[in-house]
């Protein structure tokens, strides 16, 4: 009798402790989200997309159109470079390299690369593409983001393709298809949803990156459709405006934080929904 009672009490303590911790974690998370939403909505206006930042402490805060454009350009360039390379690399590891020890090692290295702190990648690119070329530039920023995307896309592509059963490939081989045809017309088609989800999640990851851009594309207040020279981005803008002493700039930083949060949230939810759809049918 006593032993059972003791066990019940221990159970109760462990249960309440874990509930408390979970509640605390969730509460903090929602507090941050709530704060970003409220502050962001307060500072939000359509001018955010059409105007440039006004000088500090005017009645009008201005907008962040150059940061939106810069963010778009940087991300697009990173995706254009990182996604095709990543998909091809992942395809190689899943198909041609499936029996090679060296390729198994490569894919383990990719797993490690996924967890390299992004600031390390930022400093690396700074040394390779900023210092030698005489200054901050958008190409370096896009390169840093592409390097972050690459291992994620390689590994998701590899995993999604490895999940396709060999019998499906055999059926295509049995009809006389050469290997490259089997890959492009059957395996890719069967795994496209998963690969696409991986790409979305990779983009969501770089959308919130500040450190690698701080060292590479830095910031600028010019509205230019060009990646040479410094390029503004939402995340670096948040960093700089939030640290400024001016009320109006801090409110711009909240608006930018709000937009970044919404975009990352949207990409993540879209990615999860696609995963759900795929596993269902």
């Amino acid at each position, binding site marked *: 009798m006593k032993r059972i009672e003791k066990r019940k009490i221990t159970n109760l303590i462990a249960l309440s402790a874990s509930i408390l911790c979970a509640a605390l974690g969730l509460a903090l998370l929602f507090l941050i989200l709530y704060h970003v939403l409220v502050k962001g909505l307060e500072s939000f206006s359509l001018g955010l997309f059409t105007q440039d930042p006004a000088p500090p402490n005017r009645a009008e805060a201005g907008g962040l159109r150059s940061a939106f454009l810069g963010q778009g350009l940087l991300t697009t360039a990173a995706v254009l470079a990182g996604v095709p390379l990543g998909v091809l690399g992942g395809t190689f590891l899943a198909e041609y390299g499936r*029996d090679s020890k060296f390729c198994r090692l490569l894919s383990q290295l990719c797993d490690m690369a996924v967890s390299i702190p992004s600031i390390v990648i930022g400093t690396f690119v700074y040394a390779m593409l900023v210092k030698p070329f005489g200054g901050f530039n958008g190409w370096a920023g896009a390169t840093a983001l592409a390097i972050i995307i690459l291992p994620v896309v390689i590994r998701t592509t590899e995993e999604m393709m490895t999940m396709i059963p060999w*019998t*499906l*490939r*055999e*059926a*295509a*081989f*049995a*009809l*006389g*298809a*050469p290997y490259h*045809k089997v890959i492009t*017309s*059957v395996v890719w*088609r*069967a795994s496209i949803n998963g690969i696409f989800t991986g790409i979305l999640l990779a983009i969501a990851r770089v959308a919130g990156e500040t450190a690698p851009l701080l060292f590479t594309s830095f910031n600028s207040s010019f509205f230019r459709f060009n990646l040479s020279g410094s390029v503004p981005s939402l995340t670096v803008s948040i960093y700089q405006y939030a640290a400024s002493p001016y009320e109006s700039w801090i409110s711009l930083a909240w608006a930018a934080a709000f937009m970044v949060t919404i975009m990352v949230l949207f990409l993540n939810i879209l990615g999860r929904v696609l995963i759900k759809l795929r596993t269902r*049918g």
Partner: protein
Amino acid sequence: MTTTDSGVELMSVNNLSFFYGTNKALSEVTMPIKKNRITSLIGPSGCGKTTLLRCFNRMHDLYPRNHYEGEIVLDGVNILDKSMDLIKLRGKIGMVFQKPTPFPMSIFDNVAYGLRLNDIGNSSVLAEKVEKALRQAALWDEVKDRLKQNAAGLSGGQQQRLSIARTLAVDPEVILLDESTSALDPVSTQKIEDLLLELKKEVTIVAVTHNMQQAARISDFTALMYIGKLVEYDETETIFARPANEITERYVTGRFG
């Protein structure tokens, strides 16, 4: 080529051995495959039926460390030769697997898959050939109104007939079937058996089956395998009525093991 009352020899398997790495899964198999006949491969599970079947279209070449000894002669050529063009060979010798393997595309594109590999770009010729293959596989009436729909929506039996249509579309000389009805309901099985009996007018069929009634119903010749060896090969009637070998007799009368 030997001609007898019971058919012309299309292929001959001579002293064929096969190794998965160092594991010898087939030992010195010798048997003919007769043209426009159905040959059944039967035997207890693990005896090497699938292994033998996959030698005919060199499926084993997809995996490293496998190797063949001996020969399989088709049209005067040893198809196990290293210099054999596997893409051509697999165009001549088609295969239907145990489980249906629809490609993730429309019903039409599934059947057209092999044709498009052979550069049949002309869309009216393509459509004609797809229809012919689907009719041959007794699937046309069930799918003619939804050719554009994804093949995953078909029932298991329909998917298996789709796999057959896909194989027939490229006009093979031989079709290999590996327990292709084992996952199907009796009605679908019946349809496929009828279909095979019809098809043998045009192609040669080699079918692995674990179902002896099926072997007795549809095949002209039967080969019984046991632990990687060919125990007995003969006309199906002889195998079931007057087997020469004791193992065969025990197996076909169900007194095995």
